[in-house]
């Protein structure tokens, strides 16, 4: 039996906290995929995954927010049931809805960067309402642009059908999540240390 010696390279406190938050935001996105609300203006029940993308960008910033959403995708790809309807596997990422999912890290990065005015995190209390709303709208644009391209490339749909069936009908529900995200960012119930 052979033995091996090596020194232990400990993870520092700030990185440990960042990794814990990254993992838990990814898990929250997975948990949000199970939460659905009926909404008359939406053709399908509204799930909260996109809200998790908004919150990751706003509360973790562009860098860790993107990393968190990338972890969410990898967790789903290796088999954890974190995608809508408790689905998992690489196949979902290459399916008709794969474009929406693949856009999440980019969207979280865009939201975080625009809201915080750069790569570093600052208090959301210092972010003005127009900047906050503008960053979330930009995130929605990223998600639906990449999602529509995914419908065309992975789903074989024509561009027109993809825009109507994959974007326009879902925008009222996204407006709802956007309003909720602004309310959360402006509320005193959640405070980031």
């Amino acid at each position, binding site marked *: 039996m052979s033995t091996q010696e090596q020194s232990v390279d400990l993870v520092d406190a700030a990185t440990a906290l960042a*990794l*814990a938050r990254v993992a*838990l935001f*990814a*898990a929250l996105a997975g948990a949000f995929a*199970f939460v659905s609300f009926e909404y008359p203006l939406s053709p399908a029940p509204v799930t909260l995954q996109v809200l998790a993308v908004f919150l990751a960008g706003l509360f973790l910033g562009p860098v860790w927010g993107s990393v968190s959403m990338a972890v969410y995708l990898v967790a789903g790809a290796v088999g954890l049931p974190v995608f809508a309807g408790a689905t998992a596997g690489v196949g979902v990422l290459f399916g008709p809805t794969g474009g929406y999912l693949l856009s999440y890290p980019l969207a979280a990065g865009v939201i975080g960067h625009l809201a915080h005015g750069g790569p570093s995190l600052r208090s959301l209390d210092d972010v003005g309402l127009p900047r906050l709303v503008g960053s979330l709208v930009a995130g929605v644009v990223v998600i639906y642009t990449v999602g529509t391209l995914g419908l065309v490339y992975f789903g*074989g749909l024509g561009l027109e059908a993809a825009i109507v069936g994959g974007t326009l009908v879902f925008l009222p529900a996204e407006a709802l*999540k956007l309003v909720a995200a602004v309310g959360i960012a402006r509320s005193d119930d959640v405070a980031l240390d």
Partner: protein
Amino acid sequence: MYAPGTSLAHRLDPRAKLAVQVGFALAAFAHTSPRGLLVGTGVVACCLWAARTAPWEALTELRLLVPFLLAGPLVEVVVLGPPWLAPEQAVAPALASYRTLLVVLVAAAYVRTTPTRESQAALQWLVPGKPGRALGLCVGLVARYLTVLRADLRRTRTAMRARLGDRLPVHERIRLVAVAGLGRVFDRSDRLALAMRARCLSWNPTLPRLRFGPADAVALGLALALIGWALTPALAPVLASLV
């Protein structure tokens, strides 16, 4: 979801299984023709046989995808104006939907036969250094906290309903559920970070040992063949010019 078992696919190294998945996805996208997808169907049958998984079992778990797969061809077949139906337009989306179905089935065979811990070790092998360690650690934590956070959100919604919260506007209900979820995330992540450091969280832990056996070599051979087949359309003109 992972199901413990002793099938051939259960015994394979996760790295070989990941290679087959990637090779198959590339090949399916490069050969989205009736002939290519027929060959792909054969490969899928082999993968499901190796995983001792019936196609309908895998599809039951992935039933949410089925409407999306059917929607593509149905949306394209209808045209606004005479003759109202254009079946020829449905061919491309139908082939794309079938391709997705095949890729999803191969992925389902991986998911059913690979525990998260093995995937974690494969990820740490695939992505070297600290990023790989961080990725493996985070995926393991997602596996551990997913059910906990789901239960948190379920309790929040039950409490909200008990207080007639389901009569509130939808955006307010969404806000309440999300605020509760976020609060739990921050609370748990602070305690988790402290607990991980108390247990000497390090960048160089002892990893589970991955073993690459003869059966894995066959699986890797299949993956390489699929990748080669996927590259054929792109490389064919280059090869033709050389000859």
